């Protein structure tokens, strides 16, 4: 499969307990792909597999057709896969600018080149005003935007966003949607969006996969996901039938 980050029949078990079972999913370049599912469905484990934090027990991870499932996270990063974490995981004692700069330095840039690139990225994201703030003191929503910016400093071909809208207001989430769209269209990144805010996922993704108990129970365009009975059940159980539409 060319120009996509994909998982084929990926399975992971922890102490015999299945976390992922035969998951197949593809993230094409320039598009936003959604991954949703109830708590404990295996979403973060799946992101860990795609980024080298977790080796799959079975199955393959293909990056533009090349099998990369055995690579460590820093090697995945070098191949063009970046991610954010549910908890920002910024360098809390460094300024926002330093967080960006150190990422540029890690790419092999000189300090000056890294600083220029960092300032350009802060400007592109629209957070130049935060440059000198200490990352550890940022409000939750700013921390998310900084984490996305830092991941973009790595010039990724694929960006995996783990619950970037958690805790955001509707207005902040709308800003985030605009940013993610620009990442896919302007930068040409393939974005995998893992998110609990289903409205946000439906509004932005071209294709959505639904995980439940480690298995993909549904995948398709937003309209198909919206209409799916299985998805309704996975989220709300039998109560969904009684209460009607949840999505």
């Amino acid at each position, binding site marked *: 499969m060319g120009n996509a980050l994909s998982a084929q029949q990926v399975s992971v078990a922890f102490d015999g307990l299945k976390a992922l079972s035969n998951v197949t999913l593809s993230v094409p370049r320039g598009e936003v792909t959604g991954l949703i599912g109830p708590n404990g469905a295996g979403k973060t484990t799946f992101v860990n597999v795609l980024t080298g*934090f977790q080796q799959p027990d079975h199955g393959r991870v293909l990056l533009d057709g090349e099998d990369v499932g055995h690579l460590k*996270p*820093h090697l995945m*990063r*070098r191949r063009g896969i970046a991610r954010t*974490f549910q*908890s920002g*995981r910024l*360098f*809390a*004692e*460094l300024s926002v600018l*330093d967080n960006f*700069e*150190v*990422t540029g*330095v*890690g*790419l*092999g840039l*000189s*300090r000056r080149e*890294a600083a220029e690139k960092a300032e350009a990225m802060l400007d592109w994201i629209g957070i130049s005003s935060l440059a000198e703030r200490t990352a*550890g003191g940022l409000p939750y929503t700013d921390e998310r935007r900084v984490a996305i910016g*830092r991941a973009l400093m*790595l010039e990724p071909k694929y960006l995996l966003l783990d619950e970037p809208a958690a805790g955001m207001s509707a207005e902040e989430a709308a800003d985030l949607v605009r940013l993610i769209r620009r990442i896919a269209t302007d930068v040409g990144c393939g974005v995998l969006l893992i998110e609990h805010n289903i409205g946000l996922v439906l509004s932005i993704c071209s294709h959505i996969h639904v995980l439940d108990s480690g298995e993909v129970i549904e995948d398709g365009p937003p309209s198909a996901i919206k209409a799916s009975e299985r998805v309704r059940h996975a989220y709300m159980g039998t109560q969904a039938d009684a209460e009607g539409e949840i999505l």
Partner: protein
Amino acid sequence: MTALLQVFFDALSLGSLYALGALGIALIFGVMRLVNFAHGDYIAFCVFAMLWPSIDAAAIVFLGNLPAWVLIPVILVLGAGISVLSEILVFRRFRNANPATMMIASFALGFVIKYFLLMLYSSRPKSIDLWSAVSLPLEIFGARIPLLQVITIAVTLVILLGLVLFLKHTRYGLEMRAAAENFTMARMLGIRANTVIMMAFALSGMLAAAVGLILATQSGTADIQMGANLMLVAFVATVVGGLGSLPGAVFAGFLIGGLSSLMQAYLPPDARPFRDAFVYGAVIFMLIWRPNGLFTQKSAKQRV
């Protein structure tokens, strides 16, 4: 007033030594989560390097005869050298080991260095006359302060300023600060692990050498055990400051040094022999109040 000034300089000078020691430990802990108990033995190694190997009671000064402008860089390079060598020969093998294993390895390495020195120099403390002119008193606002105390404080401030500039404005400094906070994440972002770790060991070794030079000048003795006490206080200071926090280590070093000097000066004479019990009692209270240290890092609790 003059007595107060004397206590002030005592506190700053003792605090300076503790701060430099604590910083040396905190730098390594930051990038490797290793409490390097061999640090005290690096200090002794640097002091004995100034003497010609001999088990005679009288010291034969060797490098110590060099003029200060040559001796100081040579000893700093030796300190960096033994520290980097420890990393390459010993600690690199334990990168993925648990912290307790690494700590035991550092204890073992400390014993190896100690017994190596003992073999070459015997266990007898040797007198070493290094820059005796700096022991002369200096009159500041009526108080007679030993010049060495003023130099110790000044040297510490210069080292701290240099380190701040290095950490803040150089590429390696930025990499070290990021790695000290979250090494796994830094590595994931492309920071070169070996370079950063070796740089931290080199800096830590230089700090041990600086402490060694100051201790040897202060005491006029080279003693195989000379780094051990300081290592213990420095370790306590890094814990009180918040393990992994460089400003925390420096602050707590000055705090413990200040507390010791104040108690030495103001405790009733009968209680003074028990000064350390009061100091460590205060440390226990501090740790009950802030179990993770005074400067806790967010990332110390949460790692990739």
